[in-house]
């Protein structure tokens, strides 16, 4: 995607929050103040400020338009349901299928194009990552809302959306649009 959005304060807050949360998870159980000792809480804030400054200076050009709708807890809830439900199920199916193809050598690779008709960059990025994480399908390129997918076992040269990424598109439309 060619468009770039620069937002320095949002980058700082994002880097700060991510670093603090990860630091607190890694040091959980170190003391009696909730779960942390006072020194670890202090160091969490210091590491958060450092990570936030690095993000602000070097990584403030965002490829995806930031939006307030990602703070909606219903979307987070749907995202977790999506990961443990349909995504994990189709990943399990694809894992067994690819393991079978590795052992027998029955492959028919090809690069197919799908047009998911998603409007925002964020949902296209999420769909591309979901497809890449499923073994057997791999996103090679994205252009004008179309995704070019290297498929280990091509069933038809012009596949329907449900052949490549079972029900991902409708779920992602609910989560991110």
């Amino acid at each position: 995607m060619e468009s770039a959005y620069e937002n320095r304060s949002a980058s700082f807050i994002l880097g700060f929050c991510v670093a603090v949360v990860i630091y607190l998870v890694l040091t959980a159980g170190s003391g009696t103040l909730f779960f942390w000792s006072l020194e670890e809480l202090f160091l969490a804030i210091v590491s958060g400020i450092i990570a936030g400054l690095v993000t602000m200076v070097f990584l403030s050009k965002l490829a995806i338009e930031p939006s307030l709708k990602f703070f909606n807890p219903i979307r987070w809830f749907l995202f977790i349901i999506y990961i443990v439900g349909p995504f994990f199920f189709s990943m399990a199916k694809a894992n067994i299928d690819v393991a079978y193809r590795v052992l027998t050598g029955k492959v028919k690779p090809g690069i197919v194009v799908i047009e998911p008709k998603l409007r925002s960059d964020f949902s296209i990025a999420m769909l591309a990552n979901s497809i890449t994480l499923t073994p057997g399908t791999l996103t090679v390129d994205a252009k004008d809302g179309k995704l070019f997918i290297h498929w280990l076992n091509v069933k038809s040269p012009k596949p329907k959306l449900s052949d490549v990424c079972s029900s991902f598109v409708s779920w992602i439309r609910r989560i991110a649009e």
Partner: protein
Amino acid sequence: MIELLIYVFISMGLLFHVIGALALHRFFDPYTRLHGSTLCTTFGSIFLALAAIIYALQTGLFPIALHVFLAIVFLMVTNATGAHAIARGAYLHGIKPKRLAVDELAKVRK
């Protein structure tokens, strides 16, 4: 009983890792080999991590379980973006995929 479950998960993880390594050996171009590496990072690592989490919860080491969970989240995110970056870089560099049934991308890129 729980120990048996841990052993089953570890063997499943190792099995998928071995199949992924076998895919690197059997397949013939970067794109098909990447499918094998995805096999390793998804099911192989998830089963090994599940075994570690169950063991940590059983022995009362809750922070270790949290750390393993965090590791698996990062592994998922970086595997997806990394595999895409390798595939796109290889295609733009001019490494042609072999034995293709269809190639829609060749019509768009030169």
